[in-house]
């Protein structure tokens, strides 16, 4: 019996999210007195693979098959479900990111395994198996009892502390069986920016709303984000106007993020916006309207014109980085 955790690799590498997943899986496994098997699909670098052992993976696997090279939901889900059966896995853990959301539901149906999606804590109890998750877009949390024999969890990003529990496990490679007829997806073109801090990975996010007044005013905001090694985001009206690219939109129908620090410039804080950022550890609001609802969710606030405050913040950050 085991806890299986899927650590996706990005061009053969892992990131903070991967260590967080394995740390979480290791804690769940301890609660259930089971071993942790961490696996990736395709080949990741040897050093990266070994690193999974540092956070508690008792076994580390690369699942390989040429039919898994393209991300096809059906084929990947089949390979994962087969692995779970072979390894007698009782809990399967994914990230609640794009890949986890694509695969966990299909694996769920294959194994008749109930899902606790977007969990942000360790299970509240093992018998009955109860998890804690966000509901009503951040306006509530729900305790969800999973009754099936196999349980699937998707872990909310940046919700679990990374913990080192070195095992010294040696990475293994295992061949998956994938019928080529299951692969239906063909990728005809890929556009990818490299070297840019991704919004979902950033510990610090600097975001602008309509209070920024014009797309021409984003310079100091981008500079502040870069000085803080953070990512830039925006509110829905800003992306609707085309001031910023739509992948920067955070909010109910945009990206849901949970950084350590969310700095909101000229964002009033509509319910729909807060639904995307309410899991941030700290929210800082800069808004000229002292009654803006964003201040109710913020721990720190400045009542003032974002355009005037921004350059001063840039200078202040520069002076501490010296």
């Amino acid at each position, binding site marked *: 019996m085991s806890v299986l955790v899927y650590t996706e690799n*990005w061009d053969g590498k892992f990131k903070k999210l991967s260590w967080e997943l394995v740390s979480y899986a290791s804690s769940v496994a301890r609660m259930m007195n089971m071993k942790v098997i961490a696996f990736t699909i395709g080949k990741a670098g040897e050093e990266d693979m070994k690193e999974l052992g540092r956070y508690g993976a008792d076994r580390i696997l690369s699942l390989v098959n040429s039919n898994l090279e393209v*991300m096809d*939901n*059906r084929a990947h889900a089949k390979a994962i479900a087969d692995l779970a059966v072979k390894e007698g896995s009782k809990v399967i853990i994914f990230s*609640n990111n*794009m890949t986890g*959301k*694509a695969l*966990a*539901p*299909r694996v*769920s*149906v*294959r194994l008749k*395994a109930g*899902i606790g*999606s*977007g969990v942000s804590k360790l299970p509240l109890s093992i018998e009955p198996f109860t998890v804690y998750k*966000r*509901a*009503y877009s951040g306006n*509530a*949390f*729900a*305790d*969800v*009892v999973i*009754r099936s024999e196999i349980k699937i969890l998707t872990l909310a990003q940046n919700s679990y502390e990374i913990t080192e529990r070195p095992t010294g496990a040696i990475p293994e490679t295992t061949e998956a069986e994938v019928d080529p007829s299951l692969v*239906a*997806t*063909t*990728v005809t*073109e*890929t*556009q990818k920016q490299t070297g840019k801090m*991704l919004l979902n990975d950033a510990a*610090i996010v600097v975001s602008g709303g309509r209070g920024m007044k014009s797309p021409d005013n984003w310079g100091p905001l981008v500079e502040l984000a870069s000085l803080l090694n953070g990512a830039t985001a925006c509110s829905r009206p800003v992306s609707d106007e085309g001031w910023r690219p739509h*992948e920067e939109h955070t909010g109910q*129908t*945009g990206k849901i993020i949970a950084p350590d620090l969310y700095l909101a410039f000229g964002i009033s804080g509509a*319910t729909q916006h807060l*639904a995307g950022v309410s899991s941030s*550890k*700290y*929210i*800082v*609001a800069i808004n000229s309207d002292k009654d803006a609802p964003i201040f*109710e969710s*913020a*721990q*720190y*606030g*400045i*009542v003032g*014109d974002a355009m005037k*405050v921004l350059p*001063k913040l840039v200078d*202040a950050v520069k*002076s*501490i980085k010296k």
Partner: protein
Amino acid sequence: MNIVVCISNVPDTTTRIKFSEGNASIDTSGIQWVINPWDELSLARALELRDDPASGVKKVTVAHAGPASSEPTIRKALAIGADDAIRVNCNPSDAYYTAGQLAAAIGKEGFDVIICGIESSDFNGSAVGGMISEFIGIPSVSSVSGLNIDTGVPVITREIDGGRESVKVPVPFVAIVQKGIAKEPRIASMRGIMTARTKPIKVHEPVDYDSLTEISGFEKPAPRAACKFIDADDPAKLIELLQNEAKVI
């Protein structure tokens, strides 16, 4: 070619969520029910495709799993422009049960493309679309931010970390869609509202599926500490607090 759009019936986002005594269930008094925001965008895109003769899409059906009391939400989708509707007469107790019911009903009716929003704004499970595809045994494409259909051939834009891909997949398939799929929801016209009254809603009785999960209770989020205000003339103070008090920079 036919498109099915799955719609969920959810409390309006601006509704203040309250729970019944003991926090076991949501207090439905005073709730305004709406089409789930992502499903509303899915519907808008499906209708754009149907209205474009080059797509080859002839019909848009909305599918919903829920009791008769959710019919006003289905009528709203018909008023916006869907041609007809399927309702599975059940109490959607969890994602697995809901997806099983929708898959069974949609499978009986026939379709080429099923569109599901990435998540519902009530339980935020992000699971029903993917589950439907596995129940029926057809391909699914997730993180879809663009869906075109060129004389019956789907051309999909899928978001990936740091970029996007153009993807092809044969029909029938499930598209699980998100931001970008349509610019904004479509609004019902007066004529749409009138004609919606006579459009057919076909009711299916539920098939035998178990729920695998149940909600045993709700909690409200812990209240955040009151906002600490910093003088607009002294933003350096904010940086100092973030560095030394919050310790986040």
